[in-house]
Each structure stands twice: as structure tokens, then as C-alpha cells.
């Protein structure tokens, strides 16, 4: 099980979701993708994406200055 990091800091929504979608085919079942983002709707968008595509929203960590770190599992 690999853990990969995707940095979307500075990108406005919905660009982070599009970045995740592009990265998704490279992920194997069980792999974890850690995404960094600071867009106001970042968490909401990632949650919707996970729900729609059947991925697991593992955790979210608020790192201040609107910066959030989200882990999702494939």
C-alpha cells in the first residue's frame, strides 16, 4: 500500500478535483493519496468526488491559513 502526495496549494476549485481525477488511474486499490489544498471549497469538493467515485475519505487535518491536508484511499 503506497502513500502518494498531491500538492494543489494555490489552485482554485474545482482544479484540485481535476488533478485528483488525473492521478486516480495510477493508484492501486488500497493506495492512499494525500492532497494538500487551500481553496475554500476544497474539502467539500473532495468529499463529493469520493462519494461519487466510491473512494474512502480517510481524514482531514487543518494546518492553518486555510491550508488543509486530506487523505483518501482507493
Amino acid at each position, binding site marked *: 500500500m503506497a502513500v502518494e502526495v498531491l500538492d494543489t496549494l494555490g489552485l482554485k*476549485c*474545482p*482544479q484540485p*478535483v*481535476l488533478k485528483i481525477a488525473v492521478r*486516480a*488511474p495510477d493508484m492501486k486499490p488500497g493506495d492512499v493519496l494525500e492532497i494538500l489544498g487551500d481553496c*475554500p*471549497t476544497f474539502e467539500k469538493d473532495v468529499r463529493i468526488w469520493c462519494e461519487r*467515485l466510491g473512494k474512502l475519505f480517510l481524514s482531514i487535518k487543518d494546518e492553518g491559513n486555510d491550508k488543509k491536508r486530506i487523505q483518501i484511499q482507493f
Partner: protein
Amino acid sequence: MGEKIKCWDFFECEEKDCAVFKSKELHCWLVSGTHCRQEIQGKFLEKMEMCLKCEVFKENIDVASMEDTLRVLNKQVTEFRDMVEERDRELEGISMEMALGLSEVFVALKEISAGDPSVRIPEGSKLELIGKLKNVVNKTAEDIGEIVDLSHDFAIGLAEHFDVLHRVSEGDLAARVYGTSDVELLESLKKVTNQMVASVSREITERKRAKENLQHRADELRQSNEKLEQFGHVVSHELQEPLRTVISYLRMLQHVCREDGDDADEYIAYAVDGANRMSKLIDKLLADALVSSDDQGKEPSD
């Protein structure tokens, strides 16, 4: 100081609507609404600069009128000061209202520019301009919000389509787009994508079935060939053995008949010839059976 004069007389004025026209008033500068210089003038305080240079003022001013003038001037200055203070308070209120309104607008615009179009500000304001500005900001945020929501819908929809197509390319023919959207184009795209995947899935299933059928037929044909080959082997071997016996005894019989000078020799020769031809035919049958056996190892062609 000379004799007091009347302004309308001194200037031969024809301004009949003037407040002092043809009147006995000698302190015209203290009268509001005179028509000096063909213009309606205001209070003394407002026309004082002009009056101080006027010949009538210079001729008519004296101690008594000076007192009156100063009293009027004092009253007018007080009124003017009150008015200025009132204006000042009014302007202060407007400035504060404008500063507060602009601050709200600034904060809202900052949040919108940071990517949060859900922000709204109360539109009420004592200043119509600020109220309208807030209304414009709210409407702009609303419009941007709609565009952002639309772009989110497109992004999520696009991501799901991408995921489904990727899964199909990996062999998951059960993958389908399920997400719903208010965007008509995305709904149409979902329908087309799912139809396409279903069509591809059907095509692949049919091809698999056809391939299986073909393989089944090839297996049957191979088994049939094997049986035929075995049959050929059996037939050729089984037939050759008694035929050789027949040929051997015919030759022996031919030899005996030849020594006896019997005519039967000729007939036996025909029989031997026939038996030999039959033997060659059986050999050929055996050879053909062997050739077909060698070909069985090859893949059946399309």
C-alpha cells in the same frame, strides 16, 4: 460723508423686481434678494465683498447703520456657523456610513476573490450609492457562485466519466456513470457514455461467445479427425493383412498353375494385379491419414 443716496436712483436701476426698487431703504446691503448687477443676491454675508466696494454702501454707512450692519452680520455668521456645523455632522455621518459600507464591500470582494462566492452582505444603507454597491456585490457573488457551482458540476462529472472510461479500458465492463447533475449536457453525456459502454460490453460478450463457439467447433473437428485417422489406420492395417494373405496364396496358386500349363494362370494374374492395386490404394489411404494427423497440431485458420 455726503448725502445719503438710494441705490436704485444712484444706479438708475430698472430692476423692478428688486426688493429695494423705488423704496426708501438706505441700507440696501442688509436686504436680502436685491438685484445688484442684474443678479439676485443673497444675504449680506454672501454679497458682502461686492457691497463693501459699492458707492452706495460707502455713501450711506454711518455709526448707526454700522451697528445694524454688525448685528446682522453677527446673526448671519452665527447662522452660517450653525449651518456649517450641521453640514459637518452630516458629512461625518456620510463618511462613516461610506467607510463602513466600503469596508463590508472590501471584505466581501476579498472573500470572493479568494474563491468563496457564497459570501453575502446586508444591503441596507443610509447612502443609496452604498446600498446599490452592496447589491451589485451580492449579485456579482451570486453570479460567480452559479458559475463556480457549474464548474464544480462539470469537474465532478468529468472526473466520474474519466474514471468509468478508465475502468472500462482496464476490462471492467460493468462500470457505468451514475452521478446526476442539473446540467443538461452532463446528463446527455452520461447517457451517451453508458450507452457506448453497454454497446462495447455487448460487442465484447458476443465476440467472446463467438470465439468460444469457434473453439468448440474446432475441438469437435479435431476429435472427428482423430477418430477418422484412427479409423483409417485400423482400416488400412486390418485390410492389408488379409489382402497380403490373398496375394501370397494367389501367387502360390499361379506358380502351381504355370507348371501344370493350366489356363487358370492368366485369370490368377488378373486377380493378383487387382489385389496389388487394392494394396496400393490402402497404402495411399494410410499415407493420407498420416498427413492429416500431422496437420492437427496446427492452429485452425480464421
